[in-house]
């Protein structure tokens, strides 16, 4: 053997960003990709450009996952969401880099965004088994009945993630949807989809059943149109749509009476979000339950 030991330069391994649908990482059915650049126009990676068929597949996956996720106990959902936060924490460095590149932030500012996003998961994880006390409860009725209102998840929710805040904004719209037992089809920010696609990898490794969150990247308007018209989607969050697109999607969504959350201006995604987003995708189920036969005293007790 020769004594000469050359230092061979290592070939770097590029990451292929893929969609996250039904717990798997497919490429787009259409085979298309598009170039993703940083805020200064430097190429970062190719992201899959999802088609309407990917959207359809995502809805099928989300519908399939709905029964199990909505039927899981609120406590269990909280545990799973907390686990997501744990996994995010472990990949903090990666997300800080991706957010910094995508949004043109300094390392410190990007780190603050990622920390806020992790805190946001934990915040919503805590709400899973508390929201029922806040928006549900026992109603006083004039009769021998218990009358209970309980919040129920709406079903499959399409989420247009915010275009500007690629990670904190994304987490702020996805977490409230799934916390209450909905399943989500998420359209990542068109210009900065990489943090969202990486979030898919986190979700896949954190006990979240496949199909509960499905992440699509591509042209928002192209993917959102069939989803807004889809008869098996129950609600749509238009956070990432501009005014014209939002109107168009709202019209399409009216056909099967989808719940629509209109885009609202958000100045600061890191502010405490309140319960608006979590209650937007809940329905109230009211049940009457007889207290039992009335005794002579007018009460069964």
């Amino acid at each position, binding site marked *: 053997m020769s004594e000469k030991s050359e230092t061979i330069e290592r070939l770097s391994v590029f990451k292929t960003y893929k969609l996250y649908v039904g717990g798997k990482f497919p490429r787009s059915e259409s085979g298309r990709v598009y170039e993703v650049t940083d805020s200064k126009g430097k190429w970062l990676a190719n992201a899959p450009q999802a088609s309407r068929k990917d959207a*359809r597949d995502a809805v099928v996956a989300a*519908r399939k996952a709905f029964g199990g996720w909505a039927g899981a106990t609120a406590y269990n959902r909280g545990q799973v969401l907390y686990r997501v936060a744990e996994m995010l924490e472990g990949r903090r460095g990666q997300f800080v880099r991706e957010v910094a590149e995508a949004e043109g932030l300094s390392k410190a500012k990007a780190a603050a965004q990622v920390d806020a996003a992790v805190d946001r998961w934990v915040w919503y994880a805590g709400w899973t088994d508390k929201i029922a006390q806040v928006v549900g409860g026992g109603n006083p009725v004039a009769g021998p009945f218990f009358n209970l209102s309980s919040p129920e998840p709406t079903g499959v929710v399409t989420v247009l993630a915010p275009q500007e805040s690629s990670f904190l904004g994304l987490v702020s719209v996805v977490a409230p949807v799934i916390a209450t037992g909905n399943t989500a089809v998420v359209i990542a920010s068109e210009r900065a989809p990489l943090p969202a696609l990486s979030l898919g990898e986190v979700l896949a490794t954190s006990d979240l059943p496949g199909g509960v969150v499905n992440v699509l990247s591509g042209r928002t308007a192209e993917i959102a149109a*069939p989803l807004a*018209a*889809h*008869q*098996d*989607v129950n609600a749509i969050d238009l956070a990432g749509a501009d005014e014209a697109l939002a109107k168009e999607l709202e019209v399409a969504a009216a*056909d099967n009476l989808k719940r629509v959350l209109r885009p609202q201006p958000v100045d600061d995604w890191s502010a405490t979000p309140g319960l608006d987003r979590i209650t937007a995708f809940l329905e109230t189920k009211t049940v009457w339950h007889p207290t039992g036969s009335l005794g002579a005293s007018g009460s069964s007790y």
Partner: protein
Amino acid sequence: MYSRYARRYARLVTMPSTAPSPKRSAPLAQGGAPSHTLTDVTASDSTLRRFLHGLPGVDAVGLEARAASLGTRSIKTTSKAYAIDLAISMVDLTTLEGADTPGKVRALGAKAAHPDPTDRTTPTTAAVCVYPDMVAVAKEAVAGSGVKVASVATAFPAGRAALEVKLADVRDAVAAGADEIDMVIDRGAFLSGHYLKVHDEIVAVKEACGTSARLKVIFETGELSTYDNIRRASWLGMLAGADFIKTSTGKVAVNATPANTLLMLEAVRDFRAQTGVQIGVKPAGGIRTSKDAIKFLVLVNETAGEDWLDNHWFRFGASSLLNDLLMQRQKLATGRYSGPDYVTVD
């Protein structure tokens, strides 16, 4: 990759699967036996065995490659609309559960007559397929719609009963008004080489069907283990006078696959070429999506030919397939993806 295989093996796969023709032509068809030129191969157990084992072996790799390559055809727009309507008209809407109630069968009959109540241009399905004791209920439910009533019989799905019991089962279903009888062959006898026993049983059942009911013979391809056996079973069924040959009961792990259906389509094509008798094919079980159904229709068109693209000669044994076909049909009509909320739950 498949297309390369397909080209290489195309000649092998499409090679006629006919056996050497019998030395002397049959004198006369005897009572009940089918009247074609191959009648004397069923004269005895040994002639039948010699005939069936004389069929050319199946090239499994080529067969699967050809089935896969035909599955890659892209069927869009108007062709797709045609294919979906054709597939709906070929569905044998099936319920074969221990828990079948008259109510469920009536609901199924209503669905067969009007698969999509929101769109009356939807064609009716070909038939409903039920257990013999439900035939009368089904007959009443589809009365006047042109939908036929098929009934499984002969101790379905295992077929493990005495011949007399099986025949009584068939007579019962026919007497109740079944238009079609789906029988299962005795796989035990077939696998142990008693071909004539299987043959005679099919002949007896055919006789019990009389002239009013068409006979579908189920081979349960998933239990025959080899493609050679499926080819032999197909010829055996056709020789015995089946009106339809059907892949499976839907009750075992492996049901209709493109490859075994392709093999059976080749068999009916070659049988007609040799005897002039046309026989239908029915894949059953495991076909759940419109995409799958359209793949099967491509197989039919490319193998047996256009003559079989009719619900008199080709059927799908399925239950959940119909809902997917209807959702696809709604998508084509409205441009919006439909969902399971817009078709019946059955």
